[in-house]
């Protein structure tokens, strides 16, 4: 098997200068690979640094030590030391990230918010629009809202727009940070379906899922990220 993502002894701590230089350990020596067709679910108690680890992989948080290798074609790029524009390019072509929060863009309608995400990752404009329609319909966003800016939507509606945005592109790697949190059962089931489709297409997924039932359904493996710290200590 060829890995899509390889984490090698990834460590991260925050130094809080405003609190007298307090050190806050986040993750330590995290090492694992994720292959295509696989959904790796991050485990561990709350506060274990699961969400931070996803952000490190996405390049949103800095990696203090270790390597975050993401496959780009035949080669790996180390996110830990890549140039900003290389990271941005990977985000467009290789690696998607879905959180439960939509960063609202004023004045752009929901359908375009979703379709634009597809276009940014290289989809043809027509195909992007078509897929955006399918996704919004599947996620039960009423059609009358499609041309309205999501800024005015409820939290749940915004979340579903955000999921559509995250799933529209065919990227080899997908990072999911509790995408199903606070969704109702019907929509949770839709997201599970979407994840299964991505897996079937070969996407390598790393996710955090609060709900046990979702985790049961989608996880290929569960990795407790606190165990690396324990190993390191021992």
């Amino acid at each position, binding site marked *: 098997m060829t890995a899509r993502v390889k984490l090698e002894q990834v460590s991260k701590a*925050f130094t809080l*200068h*405003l609190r007298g230089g307090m050190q806050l350990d986040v993750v330590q020596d995290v090492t694992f690979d994720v292959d295509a067709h696989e959904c790796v679910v991050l485990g561990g108690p709350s506060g274990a640094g699961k969400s931070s680890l996803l952000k490190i992989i996405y*390049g*949103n*948080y*800095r990696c203090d030590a270790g390597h975050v290798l993401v496959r780009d074609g035949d080669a790996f790029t180390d996110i830990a030391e890549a140039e900003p*524009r290389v990271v941005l390019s990977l985000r467009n072509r290789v690696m998607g990230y879905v959180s439960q929060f939509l960063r609202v863009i*004023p004045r752009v309608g929901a359908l375009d918010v979703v379709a634009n995400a597809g276009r940014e990752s290289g989809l043809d404009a027509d195909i992007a629009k078509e897929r955006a329609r399918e996704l919004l319909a599947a996620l039960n966003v009423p059609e009358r809202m499609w041309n309205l800016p999501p800024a005015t939507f409820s939290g749940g509606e915004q979340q579903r727009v955000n999921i559509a945005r995250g799933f529209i592109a065919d990227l080899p790697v997908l990072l999911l940070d509790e995408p199903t949190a606070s969704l109702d059962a019907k929509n949770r089931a839709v997201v599970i379906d979407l994840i299964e489709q991505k897996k079937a297409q070969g996407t390598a997924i790393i996710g955090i899922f609060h709900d046990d039932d979702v985790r049961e359904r989608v996880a290929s493996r569960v990795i407790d990220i606190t165990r690396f710290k324990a190993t390191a200590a021992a």
Partner: protein
Amino acid sequence: MSPLLCARGLSKSYGPRVACSGVSLDLHEGEVLAVVGESGSGKSTLLGLLATEIAPDAGQVNYRFRDGTARDLHTLSEAERRLLMRTDWGFIRQDAMQGLRMPVSAGGNVGERLMAVGHRHYGNIRETAEDWLSRVEIDPGRIDDTPKTFSGGMRQRLQIARNLVTHPRLVFMDEPTSGLDVSVQARLLDLIRGLVSELGLAVIIVTHDLAVARLLSHRIMVMKGGRAIEAGLTDQVLDDPREPYTQLLVSSVLAA
């Protein structure tokens, strides 16, 4: 591909006061770099140095011209420098009064660069101006009105049209949204964001507003006391700031 703009060791002092000290940066085509910091941090001086409006005490700025050759900007002749500024570059000023010709109509403001590079067909110039006015969401029916009659937001949008009409590759922006109402700001930012990605512009934007930097830029450079103290991917620097000063800056802002 080599960078579009490449600055090394830029320094400038005014007497004993160091305005900018040893700043280096690269900018590639299509990249948006935000330079942030509080007033007096040297960010405006840096912009002036990069845009060749201020001569550096030390350091150089190389720019890759359309023919592919890179040249040190501070060795250009005045004629070359001006040609560059009115064709391949744009400069959006904080104060629209400085960036526009206030007694000249909106159409004349947009058309000036075209006429400066030799356009001599009134009808075509006017048509292009109308097109650009609509692109920046100004009613083309106002083409013959002077910016004196425009609101602050419209003036900034007119400045944008005036600069983009020659399809520049690099645009400098100096606090383009400050002094505007919040709702007007949002609209302007959204417009700039759209144009920048549509036209693939490289932008260096100076702002003290981290929300503006977050919305528009790919990369960010934090300045303090004339030095670039931290730089990187915008969301990384804002969400995981490393330097004490950057942490202070980020924590002082309401939900940037």
